[in-house]
């Protein structure tokens, strides 16, 4: 029976030299235990032999023996020449070469990946939670850099080359353009006699000399080059690069999330005991320094006390009367309404401000302020509303972990949806709320009066958001965090001590990163150089945050659990990606590209370039592509993915059930063993009584009680007392 086999693997039949990890494969090695036998010392060096294995050098490292024993095992392995076929030996050689190459690749990789030492030092002083933030930041830097390389290779360099060598063959016009004559006018060339400070304003708001540059969509031409067997279609390249960029980011995120998901499937996703988890895995051995160790100890003690307190309160609260329960739920409902009202008010404010700033046209410093108004409102609300939500969540009387998760979810919702509201408002203004037949949008399909080149305008908005976010972070650093530290350190008044040093809170910082990345994704189609700007911004963030961490911050007393939160951060990033991909898909498919600028100027939509390009392919390629796009292919593919998902779900539940079964099996066996031990004791007692009738029975029974307690106190599989010794003791009397 299967279960018995599993049982025999996990609990091998008792052996006198048994090792506790009997289920692991290892070679037999009998060594003489060097310790004295008076105390119960466990001999970890003896191992049973479970199966004959083909030699695999990697298993040697996984033997939990000390170096001398491992070396002996290695010698034995080397002397043992395995009898394998030619195919077997070729396979072994290939796997060895592969492992060797893998090791070399890992070494090279560890050289290339930046900031390894720095992040290690951060983990040593501030723990795993803060380290996870910096690891996430590094992941985003690498992602943005690789995306920039992708864009530079396929869009930027060809554009630069074609522009400088003067290729100017454009796609032949197949559209009657007389009716849309006025839509073709677009002249962003800057005024050469502008005052100097306008250059600064232009740099910061993306207008003027920055508008007609490689930074924005409007500068790229719809060049299609065909010469000497070399053809390059810039519009198609532009669109495909954007699509591949999104897919690439999605794959990177999924790979990173995958490892956590694997663990969940393998263990059946059962409930985890939080006390055991905290006590067995709570200590971070990478911490260095007395101060961090002490803080970690305080942290763990605080968590344990809070959890124990929570449990005591829960036991009391389980006995809530009906009236109290109703009151509590009513309070929670009301507070949720308050939170929703706050968030709704924020969205309304953002929409109004965006409309206002898009419609007014003033120049100079006031104009700059007006242009930045949406960013200012978003940033302020992202700062104020989560603070209020935190205070409200405290009133709701959830458990501490639920409170943290609720606060985070609300903050995430606020950030991403406020960005969505901004984009929606822009869309409403550009396409006259979707009605392309209304007066403003009639000849061109978009609001020509205000948006001569709407893609560039959207790109500019995203550019401004990115820049503003960066400036605010640096300003907070210089104007808030450093002065706070200086005041707290040098002023000994009570207020300063109560405020205390800055704590590096991980969740708000990570949400800020997710927000920046979502902005970049939304704007990547309209501003191809935005990933490069974001890479530089995140690199500067790394150094600035590191400096502020070491100079100004104290480690948080209540830390965020690092790896379950890693999964949560990536999940939130995925939500941001989905928002950006909605923006991408909608603008590519539905909105009419500008007539006056950009690579898609004469197509009815950006997507249109793809069918045109496919038409130029050979008929077999066309048939193949049509087949992949048709229902005949996609529906079976969808069904197969559903089946795979169900399979993974079933696998998870089966693992969970077998874990539960094995646990109950362990319990039953332990009870059986205790029953048998009691039987043995009773038998021994009666045997002794018969042997020692005339002599002192009292002392003997006392001795038995002692050994019985010793046995019961250390009753487990790994420790089997030497039965020979016991029998000796018995037969002495």
């Amino acid at each position, binding site marked *: 029976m299967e279960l018995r086999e599993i049982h025999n693997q996990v609990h091998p039949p008792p052996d006198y030299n048994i090792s506790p990890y009997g289920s692991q494969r290892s070679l037999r090695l009998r060594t003489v235990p060097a310790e004295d036998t008076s105390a119960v010392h466990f001999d970890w060096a003896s191992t049973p032999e479970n199966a004959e294995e083909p030699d695999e050098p990697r298993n040697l490292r996984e033997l939990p023996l000390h170096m001398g024993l491992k070396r002996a095992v290695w010698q034995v392995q080397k002397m043992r020449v395995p009898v394998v076929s030619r195919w077997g030996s070729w396979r072994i050689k290939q796997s060895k070469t592969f492992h060797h190459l893998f090791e070399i690749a890992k070494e090279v990789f560890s050289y290339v990946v930046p900031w390894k030492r720095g992040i290690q030092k951060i983990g040593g002083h501030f723990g795993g939670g803060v380290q996870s933030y910096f690891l996430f930041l590094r992941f985003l830097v690498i992602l943005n850099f690789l995306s920039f390389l992708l864009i530079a290779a396929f869009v930027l360099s060809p554009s630069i080359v074609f522009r400088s060598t003067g290729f100017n063959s454009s796609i032949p016009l197949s559209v009657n353009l007389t009716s849309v004559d006025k839509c073709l006018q677009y002249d962003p060339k800057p005024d050469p006699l502008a005052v100097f400070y306008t250059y600064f304003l232009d740099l910061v708001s993306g207008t003027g000399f920055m508008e007609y540059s490689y930074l924005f969509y409007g500068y790229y031409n719809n060049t299609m080059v065909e010469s000497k067997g070399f053809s390059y279609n810039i519009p198609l390249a532009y669109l495909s690069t954007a699509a591949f960029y999104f897919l690439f980011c999605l794959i990177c995120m999924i790979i990173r999330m995958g490892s956590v998901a694997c663990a969940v499937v393998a263990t059946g996703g059962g409930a985890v*005991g939080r006390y055991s988890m905290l006590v067995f895995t709570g200590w971070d051995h990478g911490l260095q320094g007395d101060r961090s160790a*002490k803080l970690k100890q305080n942290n*763990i003690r605080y968590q344990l006390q809070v959890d124990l307190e929570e449990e005591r309160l829960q036991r009391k609260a389980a006995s809530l009367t009906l009236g109290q329960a109703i009151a509590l739920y009513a309070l929670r409902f009301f507070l949720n309404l308050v939170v929703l009202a706050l968030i709704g008010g924020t969205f309304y404010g953002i929409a109004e401000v965006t409309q206002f700033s898009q419609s007014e046209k003033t120049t100079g410093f006031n104009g700059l302020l007006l242009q930045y108004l949406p960013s200012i409102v978003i940033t302020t609300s992202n700062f104020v509303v989560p603070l209020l939500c935190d205070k409200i969540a405290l009133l709701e009387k959830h458990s501490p972990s639920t409170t943290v998760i609720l606060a985070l979810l609300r903050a995430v919702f606020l950030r991403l949806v406020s960005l969505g509201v901004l984009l929606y408002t822009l869309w409403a203004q550009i396409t006259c709320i979707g009605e392309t037949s209304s007066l403003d949008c009639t000849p061109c399909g978009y609001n020509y009066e205000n948006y001569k080149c709407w893609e560039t305008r959207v790109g500019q908005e995203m550019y401004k958001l990115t820049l503003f976010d960066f400036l605010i972070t640096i300003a907070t650093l210089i104007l808030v965090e450093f002065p706070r530290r200086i005041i707290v350190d040098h002023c000994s008044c009570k207020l300063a001590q109560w405020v205390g040093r800055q704590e590096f809170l991980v969740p708000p910082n990570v949400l800020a990163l997710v927000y920046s990345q979502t902005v970049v994704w939304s704007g990547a189609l309209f501003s191809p150089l935005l990933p490069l700007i974001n890479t530089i911004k995140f690199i500067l963030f790394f150094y600035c945050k590191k400096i502020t961490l070491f100079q100004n911050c104290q480690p948080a007393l209540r830390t965020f659990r690092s790896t379950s939160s890693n999964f949560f951060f990536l999940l939130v990033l995925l939500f941001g990606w989905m928002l950006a991909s909605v923006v991408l898909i909608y603008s590519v498919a539905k909105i009419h590209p500008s007539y006056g600028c950009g690579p898609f100027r004469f197509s009815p939509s950006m997507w249109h370039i793809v069918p045109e390009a496919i038409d130029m392919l050979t008929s077999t390629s066309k048939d193949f592509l049509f087949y992949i796009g048709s229902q005949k292919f996609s529906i079976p593919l969808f069904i197969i993915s559903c089946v795979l998902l169900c399979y993974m779900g079933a696998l998870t539940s089966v693992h969970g059930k077998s874990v539960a079964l094995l646990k109950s099996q362990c319990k039953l066996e332990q009870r059986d063993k205790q029953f048998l031990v009691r039987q043995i004791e009773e038998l021994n007692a009666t045997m002794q009584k018969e042997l020692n009738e005339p002599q002192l029975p009292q002392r003997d029974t006392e001795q038995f009680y002692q050994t019985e307690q010793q046995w019961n106190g250390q009753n487990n599989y790994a420790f089997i007392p030497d039965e020979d010794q016991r029998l000796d003791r018995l037969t002495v009397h």
Partner: protein
Amino acid sequence: MGGTASHNLPKELLSEYQELTFLTKQEINEAHKKFCQLQGRETGPNERVSMQNILTLPELKSNPFRERICHVFSTSDRKDGSLSFEDFLDLLSAFSDSATLEIKSHYAFRIFDFDDDGTLDGGDLRKLVNCLTGETDDACLTPEEMRQLIGNILEESDIDKDGTVNLSEFQHVISRSPDFVSSFKIVL
């Protein structure tokens, strides 16, 4: 073996250590350098470095489990926690980046097993919690809290209900923790 200071390890020894541990070449050389520095402070031409000197390493100095770690990895006959270079490499290998979960959980169990009897019983758990929270009077838990905590731990992880946590039960708890591998790390 690396007895004298500032001598590099011979190549065969280096590749043998690479084969038998999870450490890379750089890490082994780095460990050798550090070990020779520690040996420099030893009196006499011993190959082993005493526990006191090992505990001066900044990575171990503030670790509350430092003595247990030395005892677990020490192969000395006198049971004094002194480490030879190979013991030191074993230590670094178990705590390295690429060590597997099984190895780490095995050694974690041995480190937590304060009385070396092969299981974690109430006394071991009590000492473990005291190490985690701090030994001073104001830092440790009240007896009431300690009792509640140990009862909870045993209820959660003692599957066969014998009052102790053995290696399999310990590894069962550890395997569900995504944090363990990254926190059980010491890198020089």
